[in-house]
């Protein structure tokens, strides 16, 4: 038994938009935002001329992927930037010449088997474009039964995945086919809420591919929910999709993979939904990685009123940006600007034990207990109620009539549990 999350107003204002390439920004800052970025090596230095698709840094040992110039121009230096997560990382700053000259070294990779395929995926610079930003080649390195393509995009406003499925169908299908063939994955399920026309036909090119119409609830696109909805399998504890024989791939991720294998041009730009009550023209914009968020809003006609809140991501799980200088990251599928009314933070009051959080938690957690147990630093209770399994989707806080900050409490509880586990392990 499991709960079925919540129903949300979709606000899919940009669903009929065509992706528009924005003017080349004057400057991009490409952060080394990946895990292990502290072991990065810069391949360029201040003053170097770079072209689009030229590698500018390698990041991390082990799971890292290369980082590429997203504009042609001159390297202005290496700066530190703060990301929405709060992390401060190095970034390669490039002043654009506006010409977008492709790098001469661009050529399609030679792929023969899984090993060379995975290396190509690594070289493509592709990370999970649905929001996680986890290196795709690491995820694909598993033997599984199901390849699940996530096209559900259940956050309000967000449309980048739907539009990829509609406008870049061939790329998505090709990407899925490549992953399926090299990974020798027997079954493919494409999970979508509202399949664009012609999708069924297009996926017939892949034998055994099945389109699954997902139920209309949030967070049906969360990995665990999606696997449950498409295969009926439940990921045990904190294990990974591959432990139940599944790989979940975002539609945009699949499309970019296909493009890299065809052209050799790595992930240097992506489509993002630009929307929210303070935005003049809700749009879908293709922008170079590292473009300042402010420039992306400019490309959507700017603001119709003073924005009071800027979000990277959707309204349920998105992160607030404190200013408009933040660079576009690979995993950002949407930017929202909210007016003062939408940005208002409600006053929270005491828990009235109404039980709505318990009724709506998609992970079936006794959500109301987590904050209380965390405040008491009651590790035993936190373990017992499995606070560590919270997926931070925000359903509990959304339905809470007392407007409590439940997600924050859950995040703190999870971090506390992880810290304590580490202490225990080091004993």
């Amino acid at each position, binding site marked *: 038994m499991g709960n079925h999350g919540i129903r949300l107003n979709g606000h899919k204002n940009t669903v009929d938009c065509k992706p528009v390439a924005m003017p080349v920004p004057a400057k991009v800052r490409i952060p080394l935002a990946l895990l292990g970025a502290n072991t990065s090596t810069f391949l360029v230095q201040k003053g170097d001329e770079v072209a689009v698709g030229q590698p500018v840094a390698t990041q991390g040992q082990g799971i890292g992927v290369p980082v590429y110039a997203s504009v042609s121009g001159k390297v202005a230096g290496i700066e530190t930037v703060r990301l929405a997560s709060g992390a401060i990382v190095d970034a390669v700053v490039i002043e654009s010449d506006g010409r977008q000259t492709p790098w001469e070294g661009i050529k399609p990779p030679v792929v023969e088997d899984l090993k060379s395929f995975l290396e190509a995926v690594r070289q493509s610079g592709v990370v999970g474009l649905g929001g996680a930003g986890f290196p795709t080649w690491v995820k694909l390195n598993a033997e599984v039964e199901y390849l699940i393509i996530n096209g559900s995009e259940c956050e309000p406003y967000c449309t980048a995945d739907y539009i990829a499925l509609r406008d870049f169908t061939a790329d998505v299908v090709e990407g899925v086919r490549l992953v399926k063939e090299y990974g020798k994955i027997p079954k493919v399920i494409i999970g979508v809420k509202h399949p664009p026309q012609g999708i069924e036909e297009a996926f017939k090119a892949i034998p055994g591919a099945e389109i699954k119409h997902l139920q209309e609830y949030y967070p049906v696109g969360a990995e665990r929910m999606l696997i*449950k909805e498409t295969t009926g399998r439940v990921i045990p504890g904190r294990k990974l999709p591959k432990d139940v024989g599944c790989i979940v791939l975002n539609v945009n991720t699949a499309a970019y993979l296909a493009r890299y294998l065809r052209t050799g041009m790595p992930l240097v730009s992506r489509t993002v939904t630009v929307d929210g009550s303070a935005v003049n023209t809700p749009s879908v914009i293709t922008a170079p990685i590292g473009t300042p968020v402010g420039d992306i809003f400019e490309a959507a006609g700017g603001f119709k009123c*003073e924005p009071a809140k800027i979000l990277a991501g959707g309204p349920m799980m998105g992160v*607030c940006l404190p200013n408009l200088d933040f660079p576009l990251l690979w995993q950002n599928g949407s930017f929202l600007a909210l007016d003062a009314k939408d940005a208002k933070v409600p006053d929270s009051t*005491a828990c009235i034990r109404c039980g*709505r959080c318990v009724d709506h938690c998609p992970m*079936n957690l006794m959500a109301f207990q987590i904050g209380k147990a965390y405040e008491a630093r009651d590790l035993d209770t936190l373990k017992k109620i499995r606070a560590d399994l919270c997926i931070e989707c925000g359903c509990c*806080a959304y339905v809470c*009539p007392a407007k409590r900050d439940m997600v924050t409490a859950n995040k703190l509880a999870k971090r506390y549990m992880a810290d304590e586990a580490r202490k225990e392990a080091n004993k």
Partner: protein
Amino acid sequence: MKLLTVSPAPHIRDKASTRSIMLDVLIALAPTLVASIVIFGFQALLVTGVCVGMAVLSEFVFEKGVKKSVTINDLSAVVTGVLLSFCLPVDIPLWIAGLGSVIAIVVVKQLFGGIGQNFANPAITARVVLLISFGGAMSTYAIDGVTSATPLAAGAANPGVLGMFLGNHAGSLGETCALTLLIGGAYLVVRKVISWHIPVAYIGTVAVVSLIAQQDLSIQLMGGGLLLGAIFMATDYATSPMTNAGKLVYGVGCGLLTMMIRLWGATPEGVSYAILLMNILTPHIDKLTAHKALGGDAA
């Protein structure tokens, strides 16, 4: 540019608030208030007014006194006041009614930490305290100036099924009119303020036990405080279980205890005591009926 708001996700919230929920409860209670005025006269409104006024006032004074933020705007004290008045007889001395509100708000609710923290239902606890302290005034039910016992009492007149359904019989202010109580309950279920589990389990259990014990079903269901208790008191968030399974257990428990008291106890009515006893068991029911996390068996 002005400073931007930075706040944790989620950035959208459902419209329902503590206040809107309490307002829904008040709307659900309104038809019964009207019925009580029709049945018992203007004095019914006065009793309710005193209870509500004293409940709000004592919450305000207490919170001011202990320098807590004042929460009377959440309307929960108003709900407590109405509910308490609904389980009082119409000719209760007004000072006793007011005292009941003070007990409900200060002793039962605020001293345990305020809204959501009390382990027992404030209105019911206050009623029980008044019943024990002022037994005579609390169990003298007058209708049209004639004092009589509630239909549950041995030897009392049976007002007939229709009379019972419309509430034209002796009883507490808000317990007699089954029609308006059911309308209120339906409203709360439709508005998703309460779920059906507790009222249905509670009333169903009473019905089944009544049939087994060969009692008059209409008297058992509508002659006492069952409907008021099952729909409005036993569903109190703070003192009832969280999960649907827990709510069913709780409802059945309330039903069994009510019938035990009615059949074997020294008093004709058992709803208040049954709910109060089940309030105490709620933390244990919660523990035993907690949801299991999805995939929660593994590390």
